[in-house]
């Protein structure tokens, strides 16, 4: 039983689930480190998945689809950025509205383009790199050879470096922690907050593209709460890229365990709760204190 569960296929399943969580969760880190709460991740993922599907469907090129997915995420994040940074409207409500908008617009266009209210036509997946090992398990080999898996690992490591070791990261954290002080020393709060939100849009859009290629189609509402799990992982990971990715791995592990047990006919709802309950426990400070960036969620009003 145990060996059946923790097989190579199980590992592959865990990775498959963890990749989009990690990308979106990193997106959350960039946005919130800059001081903008991004509940819109859910909608960004959905729009990213949709744009990736449409881009691939009409050009036949998955690579172009990836670009479209990122572009769709960027555009969606741009709405959030304009509304929250320029207009200084409430960040949480903006996020909720964008999530609602994404559900509506994707289904609306889906019906126009594919004449279906539930799913698109089939699209090809991403080409994979031949690894030369585990060829006897073609599914696993295909997954591990997926360029986005490698890209995700690189993005996680690079983000840890970017946020904590580069000038960009320092400035981003400064506008999220204490925008007045950052402004005083000449850092443009607006610019860095825009960058934070847009990077989060690109990453969450990429997460959406992953979902579309993984499933070879777009289905309505396919983000299915992943944006919220990504937010949860960001908190459990204490707003650190590596921490967030580790939390995503944990959540991905729990979810693939749940899928296995479901196959065995066992009730899995309690495993399903793990990410959410873990987040509540961490937030309550039972396992170390999770502290959000100082000015997270607060619009910046420049002194006149």
């Amino acid at each position, binding site marked *: 039983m145990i060996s059946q569960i923790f097989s190579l296929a199980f590992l592959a399943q865990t990775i498959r689930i963890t990749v989009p969580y990690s990308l979106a969760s990193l997106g959350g880190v960039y946005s919130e480190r800059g001081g903008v709460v991004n509940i819109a991740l859910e909608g960004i993922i959905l729009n990213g998945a949709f744009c990736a599907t449409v881009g691939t469907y009409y050009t036949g090129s998955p690579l172009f689809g990836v670009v479209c997915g990122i572009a769709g995420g960027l555009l969606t994040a741009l709405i959030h950025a304009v*509304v929250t940074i320029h207009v200084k409207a409430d960040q949480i409500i903006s996020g*909720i509205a964008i999530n609602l908008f994404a559900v509506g617009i994707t289904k609306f266009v889906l019906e126009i383009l594919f004449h279906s209210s539930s799913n698109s036509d089939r699209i090809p997946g991403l080409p994979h790199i031949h690894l030369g090992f585990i060829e006897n398990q073609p599914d696993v080999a295909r997954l591990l050879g997926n360029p986005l898996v490698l890209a995700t690992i690189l993005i996680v490591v690079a983000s840890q470096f970017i946020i904590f070791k580069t000038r960009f990261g320092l400035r981003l954290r400064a506008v999220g922690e204490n925008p007045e002080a950052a402004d005083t020393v000449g850092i443009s709060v607006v610019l860095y907050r825009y960058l934070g939100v847009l990077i989060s849009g690109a990453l969450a859009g990429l997460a959406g593209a992953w979902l579309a290629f993984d499933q070879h189609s777009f289905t309505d509402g396919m983000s299915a709460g992943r944006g919220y799990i990504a937010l949860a992982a960001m908190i459990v990971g204490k707003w650190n890229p590596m921490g967030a990715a580790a939390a995503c791995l944990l959540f991905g592990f729990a979810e693939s365990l749940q899928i296995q047990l479901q196959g065995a006919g066992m009730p899995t709802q309690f495993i399903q709760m793990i990410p959410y309950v873990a987040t509540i426990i961490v937030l309550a400070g039972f396992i170390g204190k999770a502290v959000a960036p100082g000015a997270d969620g607060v619009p910046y009003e420049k002194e006149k």
Partner: protein
Amino acid sequence: MADVKNGNRHWLEHPATQTFLIPILAVALSFAIGAIFIVIVGQNPFEVYSTLFSQTLGTSYGIGQLLFKTTPLIFAGLSVALCFRAGLFNIGAEGQLQIGAFATALVGMYTMGVPPVIEIPLLILAGMIGGGLWGFIPGYLKAKTGAHEVINTIMLNFVAAALVSYFVTNVYNVPATVHTPPISPTGRLPRFDALFSGFEGSPVNFSILIALLAAVFVWYYIDRTRYGYELRVVGLNPKAAEYGGISVAKNIIVSMTIGGAIAGLVGTNFVMGYKYYFEEGFSIGTGFMGIAVALLGNNNPFGVILAALLFGMLEYGGLVINTMVPKELVSILQAIVIIFVISSNKIFRRILVNFLKKRTLSVND
């Protein structure tokens, strides 16, 4: 500013301008943008909109459907509005209404044959306790540990969904369905069409009266009681409240619990007045829509009723126009309304401030 003292206020400065003008403009603008989407589909916006209005407001069946969709939105909107006034952001109405509605169904299953005068209040109370408990948790966590209610309510929405899913699929299940066995016949609220033949076939029922009562309660509680006064002070300025001897922690817990209890009443519409059982996924997004309703209603209980009517109309209207344009048009409209309201509140205030500055300057000249 001098004019204000003289009682000769410019209309732009009148609070009613902001309360009514912004929502109306937001709705009008969203319909205008929606028209672009309709044209893209190759339909005539005037035709689509006139169908939307005539099929919802023009027939008693349509009005019945509209009111049925409005009822849960009033509960959810009131829940969010009350918490808002206490400075709290309740994104958890969705989870609270799930737990509340499930509690109503659960108690209803086990109390067969109890007379309606006891059964109906009992089931209402069950919904309030279920929802209230789900509001109490994030309230308590916020008060005691400072954990942000936004994140905790989001998380608890998912926990609630998983929890009711467990009970509905594994414990109280009618085989081959995702709903519970029916509640006691004595716990059912009559439908309007049982009394007025005009509503024939539409599911609107007496729970809408409970919703209106809840709105009156929220108004009275917030505007006319000492507790409501405390709640508002905490919402406006928690430090001043604490300094003035008002317990911020207590008010956070109480507000979230009452907010949750009101959201928990959603079950009166679906469980007691419509299907007579709890069904998994019966409310997709009502709690989130409550945020939009509260926002559009300016967090005022009566504003919430009006906003809920509008959103209820849109929700049923989407189904009506589905043959012409995809019904998701209404989700797009709703999202645009929300974005316009939150943006225009800020933009309007800025215009107002600039306007007043200029006027002050000209007066000084």
